[in-house]
């Protein structure tokens, strides 16, 4: 078990190193940040001096080594545009993105799993067919369009919910939360639905497919032949067996939710890391972009690791095989 975790950690560092390299290399071709930083009338000497101060005149590999060395210590340098430390900028934006992503993930699971189970058990029912048809919309409509349509209906037409921003926030230590104020909660509704809709339909369809698969197995048939109740068969025996693949996809999707919050945050002007990233892209703010990409990579590998560990909790076959290997 410990060896397994250590092996996965080693893989994690390898992945992060590659991501850092790719991110850093890509951003060298996104434009010249100096051009954005200085005014039209700056002299060539001014530009050269600034370039030297920031270390941008050094060879690529020196810049990268310095970037990695600092990043390991949590120092992603200074934003070229805002002149503030990138780590501070990200830390300020992190709570907004995490709250939005978690709200979306919980919404997606809370609706997706029951809807998937329902459509599998009542697969010939009218409601199940309606849900499946509706889920096609969720899968195929792009996120920004869903967001705009929601804004049009609930913010513009009905005026029930705010169309942008995060509402009032409360600071708890270093963490600003919108979950404790009425306006913060109201502001969360539309963005989290927008962000959750795709994942929700994906989870629903996945749970349905897995559930139908499991319901055809011999052990479900044998459970029926023993006269167990439908409730025990469906929610005890069948649902637990559908969870292994569902955990995998959900875990990976949680990573995507955080990563793809960029679009939702842009549509709703949600002050999270995604919005910060988009603004950074516009100004070729390389330190911010690189730090953001590294952060997303960390999120993905951490979630992957957590998913692998969750398998052990669900599936006894893995526990034994690993146990026997030591």
């Amino acid at each position, binding site marked *: 078990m410990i060896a397994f975790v250590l092996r996965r950690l080693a893989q994690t560092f390898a992945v992060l190193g590659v991501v850092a390299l790719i991110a850093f290399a890509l951003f060298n071709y996104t434009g010249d940040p100096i051009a954005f930083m200085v005014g039209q009338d700056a002299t060539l000497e001014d530009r050269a001096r600034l370039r030297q101060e920031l270390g941008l005149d050094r060879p690529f590999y020196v810049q990268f080594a310095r970037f990695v060395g600092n990043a390991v210590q949590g120092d992603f340098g200074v934003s070229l545009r805002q002149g503030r430390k990138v780590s501070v900028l990200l830390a300020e934006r992190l709570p907004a993105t995490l709250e939005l992503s978690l709200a979306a993930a919980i919404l997606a699971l809370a609706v997706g799993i029951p809807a998937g189970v329902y459509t599998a058990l009542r697969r010939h029912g009218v409601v199940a067919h309606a849900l499946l048809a509706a889920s096609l919309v969720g899968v195929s409509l792009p996120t920004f369009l869903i967001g705009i349509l929601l804004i049009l209906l609930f913010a513009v037409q009905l005026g029930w919910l705010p169309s942008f921003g995060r509402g009032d926030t409360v600071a708890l230590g270093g963490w600003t939360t919108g979950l404790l104020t009425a306006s913060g909660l109201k502001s969360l509704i539309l963005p989290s639905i927008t962000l959750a809709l795709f994942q929700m339909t994906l989870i629903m369809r996945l749970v349905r497919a897995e559930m139908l698969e499991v319901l055809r*197995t*011999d*052990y479900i*048939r*044998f*459970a*029926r*032949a*023993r*006269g*167990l*109740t*439908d409730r*025990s068969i469906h929610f*005890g*025996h069948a649902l*637990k*067996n559908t969870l292994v693949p569902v955990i995998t996809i959900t875990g990976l999707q949680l990573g995507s939710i955080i990563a793809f919050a960029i679009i939702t945050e842009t549509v709703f002007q949600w002050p999270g890391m995604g919005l910060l990233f988009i603004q950074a892209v516009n100004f070729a703010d390389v330190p911010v972009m690189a730090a953001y990409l590294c952060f997303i990579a960390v999120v993905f590998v951490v979630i992957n690791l957590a998913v692998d560990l969750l398998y052990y909790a*669900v*599936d*006894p*076959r893995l526990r*034994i095989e690993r146990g026997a290997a030591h």
Partner: protein
Amino acid sequence: MTASAPLLAVDRLRIEFPTRRGTLVAVHDVSFEIARGEVLGVVGESGAGKSITGAAIIGLIDPPGRIAGGEIRLEGRRIDALPPAEMRRVRGREIGAVFQDPLTSLNPLYTIGRQLVETIRTHLSTGEAEARARAIALLEEVGIPAASRRIDQYPHQFSGGMRQRVVLALALCAQPKLIVADEPTTALDVSIQAQIIQLLKRLCRDHGTAVMLVTHDMGVIAETADRVAVMYAGRIVEIGPAADLIHRPRHPYSIGLMGSIPSIGGSVERLVQIDGAMPRLDAVPSGCAFHPRCPRAIERCRRELPELRPAGATRAACWLAGSPVEQAA
């Protein structure tokens, strides 16, 4: 048969599968009875309708298949048209089932103890501790060594033969009066098969449980069954006491089946092989469905369907079975 109602009575059972190209009839007018404690062997080739007849008795025919006619009675009470909730209480409590593959019959994510306790508590009003004690006793009875330790293990920690023993314990744990065993040994090693059959025989004798033993293994039938029903193309073509049916079969198809049993110690002759294959459900021939493969078919067999009628010690559905036919091979 005694004067009291038989344990199980199947009367003119008909099972249909509606398909896009018309309705296929998987089982035609099948009637048989099983007495208390009796082992009825049901034999035939794949697709003869054996397994689906067993599935009908436990009320688990896979849709779109359905019972289209006839009755199934358990101790005189009709069970083929019970509401699902009542049929559920019959399954496990009054009729147990054992399926072919022990490797896939157990839920991989629960310990066998949990599966046993859940089944016991579904049917009998016992507490958790009592159900667990009963589960351990059952595991010992089916021959699981160190049952009190192994009860907390998962199915993958048991071998195939051991898993089939667990399956038997699960089928028996609410003391059903009848067990429908559908090819219970087919998926096992030959050396394990005999053990499981012996165990099934012993358990049913001890508990007074009747068995409907569906198999295509004539050796298993010869060793276990009190009576045998031979099915072909959805009908029973011969039914009677096991010894008579095995040694003096009357229907040409039964004669062919019995001729395919290799006997140890007997003079070595060629095993009989029945030429051809059983017809598909959508292309059953007119008259007796066996006539295209029958070595003795006469003109009447092509036109008229024979009913089951007494032929020696058994009853056979054959126009020629009234007159004794010498055993082939």
